[in-house]
């Protein structure tokens, strides 16, 4: 080979070192894992975000030994201004109150939710007698059972089972302190209370009717009530199912009652129709109805929640990048580079 074409060992070493340095430099400009979290518990939520947005929750059923009421208090931790929300169930009513500053006594915004009647509908007209759900859920006929369980990703979840004596209508409430993978397709949010509605064995009088669950929402004067479709959770990617919601707001502060657009009716997923949200001036309440296809077992999953300002503050504040140790990669790099260095030195010595 002509001498001019031979590549000297020194030139090769310099070229190799230069190439290595250039590769490392280029790689350092590439989007890296530095600063980006991981999702070890596979609940689709960044683990760092999950830890930073965990809330302090007290969830109890009272009074002992035969509870028929629920008290949930949830407070953010670690925000510049921590917020809180309370959810209570008593005498057939669900009251949700959001406090912009935890520890204050006056809620910034909230609403009262009541399930009123279950009634058969045909083309919007009532058929047969209605079942007064509110009466069923009142103190004397309702029992609340509280259980604590572990979600699929190892988080603590408190579940309240509200059951009335006939067994026709029941509600489960699920409360989590952190984002929790409740089912393979459902992640509980600490800013929400997940609700499951059970309607079993409704005594239909006709075969061609639907079942309407009439709902009332009461808010204080000065709060705004609106509908959103899709819900905020869907818009922001926190929900994987189609949802609609009622939003009760006071300025930028908001609470919501959201529901999936389908329900499980006798094991099959079926669409849920919803009547228009209307204000009933005589009662001073907003009304709507969920209309389910006829079935013997209906399961629907709404949720009650707040738009937590503390959560927004935590999520949007500048993140400090983190380092990601990888012992295997580190060791491999050590060995490979050590071999390269020893080889270069050895070749150099032999050439001398």
């Amino acid at each position, binding site marked *: 080979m002509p001498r001019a074409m031979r590549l000297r060992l020194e030139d090769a070493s310099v070229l190799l070192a230069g190439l290595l340095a250039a590769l*490392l430099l280029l*790689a*350092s400009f*590439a*989007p*890296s*894992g*530095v600063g980006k979290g991981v999702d070890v518990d596979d609940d689709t939520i960044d683990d760092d975000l999950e830890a930073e947005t965990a809330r302090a929750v007290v969830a109890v059923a009272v009074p002992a030994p035969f509870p028929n009421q629920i008290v949930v208090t949830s407070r953010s931790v670690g925000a510049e201004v921590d917020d809180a929300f309370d959810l209570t169930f008593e005498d057939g009513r669900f009251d949700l109150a959001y406090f912009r500053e935890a520890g204050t006594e006056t809620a910034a915004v909230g609403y009262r939710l009541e399930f009123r009647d279950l009634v058969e509908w045909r083309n919007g007209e009532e058929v047969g007698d209605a079942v007064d759900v509110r009466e069923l859920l009142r103190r004397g006929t309702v029992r609340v059972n509280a259980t604590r369980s572990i979600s699929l990703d190892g988080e603590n979840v408190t579940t309240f089972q509200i059951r009335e004596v006939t067994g026709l209508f029941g509600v489960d409430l699920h409360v989590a302190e952190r984002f929790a993978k409740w089912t393979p397709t459902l992640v509980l949010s600490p800013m929400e209370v997940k609700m499951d509605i059970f309607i079993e064995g409704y005594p239909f009088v006709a075969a061609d009717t639907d079942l309407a669950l009439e709902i009332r929402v009461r808010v204080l004067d000065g709060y705004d009530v609106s509908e959103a479709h899709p819900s905020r959770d869907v818009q922001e990617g926190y929900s994987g199912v189609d949802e609609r919601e009622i939003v009760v707001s006071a300025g930028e502060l908001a609470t919501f009652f959201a529901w999936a657009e389908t329900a499980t009716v006798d094991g099959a997923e079926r669409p849920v129709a919803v009547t228009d949200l209307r204000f009933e001036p005589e009662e001073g309440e907003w009304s709507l109805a969920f209309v389910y296809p006829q079935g013997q077992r209906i399961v629907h999953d709404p949720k009650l929640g707040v738009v937590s300002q503390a959560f927004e503050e935590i999520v949007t504040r500048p993140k*400090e*990048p*983190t*380092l*990601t*140790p*990888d*012992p295997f*990669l*580190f*060791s491999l*790099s*050590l060995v490979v*580079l*050590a071999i390269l*260095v020893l080889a270069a*030195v050895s070749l150099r010595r032999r050439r001398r």
Partner: protein
Amino acid sequence: MVLENVIVAGVTVFALALTVIAAAAYRRTGERSLLMLAAAFALFLAKGVALSLGLLLRLLFVPDLFVLSSAFDVAILALFFVYTLRR
């Protein structure tokens, strides 16, 4: 991506090699400038070891990393500065 692991390993390996080479050269020639060079490379090695331990044992946060790395750089540059002035 875990590029920091490769970089820190690289710093450690190359610094070790250069320290050994410089120390061997000083031993062979007795030239004091090579001693200072070996000391500078030894500081690079100490930096590599410190960063490796800090990374693998999760002892370092990015602000600490900046301070630690810069402190070593200052010490190394000071050695080079003294070496340059003495020449």
